[in-house]
């Protein structure tokens, strides 16, 4: 894991040094703030509903942020030829993937922390519990991790960054809306497809409403692991090609 830590520090440093990363973070936070003001706070609502609306919008932005911060991670290394340094160092492929993923997750978490003032405002002026906010943010964190993992996998497939972004977005949109497809299917396939949904079943009906289900946590962790494993296997396969 030493190599993971070295790669993590370099990647995180790269995010913190890059003005474009801060610009993207600022734009996402600004968009979050605008939606919060213009939509979540619209009209007289129960504070719990305001929090739900805020988390609803935030989940889209976190999904987008996850892809934006991950699509370049491996594709850019290939494009700039710096991947050779990692490939010819005594570093295992999973250490490369994990180091990069954790750095992106740290930066995404930082953005989530910067957005915390909005639910805190709801709590100060309304009647919601701290636990509701924590569960909602835990859901955002897990959904962000899934989005990042999908982005890392897409990034491992190609040296073209834009193509990686498109592949990642496609996967995220399909897996986030697979619930819609389930309604057109018969049992028992319907139940399987329903339970594979990334967003609607897990986030919208769970974390967003302040409900913490262990199976939802395990599902998100499992999907994250699955896509990171695919990324590792893709890197291994590329050496054989």
């Amino acid at each position: 894991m030493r190599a993971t830590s070295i790669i993590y520090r370099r990647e995180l440093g790269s995010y913190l040094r890059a003005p474009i990363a801060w610009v993207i973070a600022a734009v996402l936070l600004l968009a979050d703030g605008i939606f919060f003001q213009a939509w979540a706070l619209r009209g007289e609502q129960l504070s719990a509903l305001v929090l739900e609306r805020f988390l609803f919008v935030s989940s889209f932005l976190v999904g987008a942020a996850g892809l934006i911060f991950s699509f370049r991670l491996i594709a850019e290394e290939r494009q700039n030829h710096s991947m050779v340094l990692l490939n010819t160092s005594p570093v295992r492929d999973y250490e490369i993937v994990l180091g990069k993923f954790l750095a992106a997750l740290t930066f995404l978490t930082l953005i989530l922390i910067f957005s915390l003032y909005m639910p805190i405002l709801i709590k100060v002026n309304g009647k919601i519990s701290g636990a509701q906010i924590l569960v909602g943010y835990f859901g955002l964190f897990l959904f962000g991790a899934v989005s990042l993992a999908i982005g890392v996998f897409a990034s491992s497939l190609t040296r073209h960054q834009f193509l990686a972004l498109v592949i990642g977005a496609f996967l995220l949109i399909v897996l986030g809306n697979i619930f819609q497809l389930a309604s057109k299917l018969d049992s028992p396939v319907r139940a399987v497809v329903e339970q594979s949904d990334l967003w609607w079943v897990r986030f919208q009906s769970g974390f967003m409403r302040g409900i913490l289900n262990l199976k939802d946590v395990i599902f998100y962790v499992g999907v994250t692991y699955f896509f990171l494993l695919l990324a590792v296997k893709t890197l291994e396969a590329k050496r054989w090609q």
Partner: protein
Amino acid sequence: MIRAKDLQKFYGGKRALGPVSFEINDGETVGFLGLNGAGKTTALRILACDLRPSAGTIEVGGVDAVAEPHEVRKRIGFLPENPPIYSDMSVTDYLKFSGELRGMTKPQLKKRLPEVLEITDLTEVANDAIGTLSHGFRQRVGLAQAIVHQPKFLILDEPTRGLDPVQIVEMRNLIHDLKQSHTVLISSHILTEISQTCDRLLVLGRGALLGAGTEAELGNVKGEIRQITVTVRLPDVKDLEGTYRESGDPKAFVNSVLSEIAGVSKVAEPYEQGGGLTYALSTEKDCRADVSRAVVKAKLDLLKLDYARSELENTFIRLVGGSDASN
């Protein structure tokens, strides 16, 4: 020692390399020579454990590079054709990162970094972002990352690619210094670079090993026709003797002098060059000494005498085939 046996690499259905077998002894500097697409880069990438071979075995320092690439990578420093750099990092941070990846500790790096910066002449730009450096400096940064962990084997793929003449000389001197402490493998299609740097050559063409040995060994082929060029100043007609004086043809005189030299099978039509006439002689052996003696004996002024092509050029063209080389 590096030992490759029946090494092959396919990209999809296309054969890029092999089967090739070779051995490289410790302390040697070996040049991989070949035209573009000959398989040099593929061979070096396999040796550096960046690619896995489709078939065959490689041992680096007694370790199987296919079964234990992790162990082999610790012993190897690799400078690919495009240096693997991060533009946003400073030179020092990048070298620290490279060293740490190869398992170096902080105290080891603290001691080693100033040495590497000095060897590669990067001290003055140590704190600059790599993205702001010139191509020559970036190439040196690439070399610095390859040697920072003091690997036993150094693999350099086209190390002088894109450098200006001054930078080429500097890089060549740098490699020359590194030869003292590393087993060095260099690929290039520039013959002079390989000729001046390497102890032994592996000539590749279309993925196959066409020849292996020292420059002398590869060039030592009986019956091979070589071209020698000799430039002489034409004598005055009054200095000529006998029939040549009567005919007033100094060119015919020079032609007869050169034709009578033992080993010269053909004298081509001369052309003017450097204040004299240049003759191309076809020979089956190195008869430069005979030519110089004959020219002096005939009281001609000798202005220049050399092979039309270098030894290595002759060898290379013979091995890869004239048509391929001219493409």
